[in-house]
């Protein structure tokens, strides 16, 4: 008996170093749709392969639902191990308050600055020269997704740009197809507006409004053109009564709608539905005009912790999230672009390849989350969704409202 117990104890002590790390780490995020869950599972699997335990803290309902819970945990002094935020200004104040782990040493040791592409992504994680987050993917909003089946049913070619698409509108209507799918959530209408703005204005005008916050340019005829296109778009979307973005994507997948202006995360839904880019659907960056993409995306932050074991586990997870293998497996599932320029993404599909090319060419913009505060972005959301749903609001009114918000943005 005694002998056996000793043996068991011995075995246990030997077994211990095998699973070298055994720290539990809570990770909160708002990725719960099909493609998103599969992608986040890649992180979890890789992390657990090292012997640690991933405690999943998924909160559905988007950042609006999840962020108050995350922020509560951090300011209440009982933080989670790691948490998702969008790349940008969302965690600014938490970093300034000293609540986030400084990752600079790890980043320097691993040479993040050498392989992160575009390098601007690291800037979004940097406050006063120190790095506080790991960018994990790049998402761009400037895409239109089009169903081949829908245009075939209407008897037209798949459009190559926005104007061709608008021209196909009547034929689509006749075939009983909603030309443009749009979810009811306000950020989706604002995203569509932003995409139209990038596609239909010169880059000087766009930068004047979005970077210099010049309200006069926002009031100018150059922008009137964008609002007119936006007005056309809302008329093309009448009959698209769905709420979530992926319900709208699903309308395109099934061909009940012809197109959707949406970010590249829509890709994951086409993939889950087994559709092939270039065969079943087409994607046009910059609506076929300005092939420019913004570089939004997600980043993970690691709240400071007293427990050195947790801090060590946090650094392990940070290093793992940006490692080449995990970047490939995660981003293929998520339908987003990797943050590293040095990995092989040849298994990516047509649309992702287009995105990668644009990325490599350097035609990139900062995203709305990086340019404006959440407060301002939500004011845009409210304005755009009100205009989209209430056809009595005129182009002139919405443009004036837009210029006011730009003028007051901080």
């Amino acid at each position, binding site marked *: 008996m005694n002998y056996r117990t000793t043996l068991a104890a011995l075995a246990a002590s030997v077994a211990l170093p095998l699973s070298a790390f055994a720290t539990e780490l809570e990770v909160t995020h708002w990725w719960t749709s099909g493609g998103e869950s599969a992608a986040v599972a890649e992180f979890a699997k890789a992390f657990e392969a090292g012997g640690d335990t991933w405690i999943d803290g998924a909160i559905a309902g988007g*950042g*609006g639902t999840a*962020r*108050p819970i995350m*922020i509560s945990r951090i*300011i*209440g*002094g009982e933080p989670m191990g790691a948490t998702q935020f969008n790349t940008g200004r*969302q965690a*600014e*104040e*938490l970093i300034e*308050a*000293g*609540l986030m782990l400084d990752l600079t040493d790890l980043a320097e040791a691993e040479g993040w600055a050498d392989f992160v592409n575009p390098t601007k992504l690291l800037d979004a994680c940097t406050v006063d020269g120190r790095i506080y987050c790991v960018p994990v993917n790049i998402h761009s909003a400037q895409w239109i997704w089009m169903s081949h089946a829908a245009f075939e049913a209407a008897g037209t070619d798949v459009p190559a740009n926005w104007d061709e698409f608008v021209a196909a509108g009547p034929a689509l209507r006749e075939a009983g197809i909603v030309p443009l799918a749009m979810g*009811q*959530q*306000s950020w989706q209408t604002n995203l569509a507006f932003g995409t139209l703005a990038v596609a239909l204005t010169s880059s000087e005008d766009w930068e004047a409004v979005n970077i210099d916050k010049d309200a006069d340019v926002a009031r100018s005829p150059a922008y009137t053109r964008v609002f007119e296109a936006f007005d056309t778009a809302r008329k093309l979307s009448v009959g698209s*009564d769905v*709420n979530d973005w992926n319900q709208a994507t699903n309308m395109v997948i099934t061909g009940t709608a012809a197109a959707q202006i949406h970010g590249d995360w829509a890709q994951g839904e086409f993939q889950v539905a087994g559709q092939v880019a270039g065969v079943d659907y087409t994607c046009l960056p910059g609506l076929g005009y300005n092939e420019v993409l913004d570089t939004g995306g997600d980043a993970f932050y690691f709240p*400071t912790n007293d427990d050195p074991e947790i801090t060590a586990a946090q650094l392990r997870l940070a290093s793992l999230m940006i490692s080449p293998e995990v970047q490939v497996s995660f981003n293929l599932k998520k339908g987003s672009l990797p943050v590293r320029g040095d990995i092989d993404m040849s298994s990516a599909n047509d649309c992702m390849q287009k995105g990668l090319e644009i990325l490599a060419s350097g035609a990139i913009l900062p995203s709305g989350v990086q340019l404006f*505060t*959440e*407060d301002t*972005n*939500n*004011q845009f959301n*409210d304005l755009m*969704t*009100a205009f*989209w*749903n*209430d056809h009595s609001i005129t182009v002139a009114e919405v443009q004036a409202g837009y210029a006011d918000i730009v003028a007051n943005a901080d």
Partner: protein
Amino acid sequence: MAHTKRPSQLFRNMAAKIAAIPMIFTTLVVFVGCTGWTVVYSFTKSKMLPKKIFETTELFSIPTPSWLSDGSLDFSYISGIATKNFVGLAQYERLWNSDRWLLSIENIAIYGICSLVFTFVFGFILAALLDQKIRFENTFRTIFLYPFALSFIVTGLVWQWILNKDHGLQQVVRDMGFENFNFNPIYDADIVMYGILIAGLWQGTGLIMCLMLAGLRGIDEDIWKAARIDGIPMWKTYIYIVIPMMKPIFATTLVLIASGIVKLYDLVVAQTSGGPGLASEVPAKYVYDLMFASQNLGQGLAASTMMLTFVIVVVIIIPSIIRAFGGKKNHV
């Protein structure tokens, strides 16, 4: 009550005072304290985190409480000289210039009035029907009451599904031959608040019916007999005799319904997310969205201060109305 008139103030009733400590703590620290916190910070430009109303300067580094240094944040009043974060009434100015806030108030007014009237009338009629010495009373009562067991998330989801334009009520009526029947409250801005009302009434009327039924059961049989002997029609008996006798229960009912209206949030989020557009936005949602989604605490707190002001007015006015009508009963 006799025992309240005895002398010796402080130590009298000690046990009762000790027993009431949790309540005193809750009212003073949580309700009054947090309300005060809300009001104070509504005058600041706090964004994601609360910003001290007066900024302290480096020169006066006041010894900070220990829990400050461990990473959690101060929310107590610390006096200083610079007023960097104080913005006066700016948050209120923005609030009352916001179309969304004005629309929210309009929506809650529509919902509130309808909900109050319908819940009262419907609850009372249901109770009166059940009070007719009917068979299967238990069955009917359970049917009217069970929705109350379900959360607003569930309620909103179920009614969203029933009112779905492609599969739900609208389609079913159309299939019956009424091709032009239009009832799409989830995506029709003009009637969306009524779509929410239908769900809200479904969930909440049962409890009110129970309260009303309890009130009716409390009425003396002799009163009914007397009314019948005098040949007073039943509806007159209800209006002139029974209802005035039920004032106390109406008071409880009013507290329940009114607090539900002010706090209306989950149902809207689950059923319409405030859409289409902004058509079903409500004040509690404005508060929540501004505080958390927009990370503009100051603005959210200004909105909640307005809500709390409204509530204080209501809580003070309701008891005085009841006192004016209620006569002898002095509880609530």
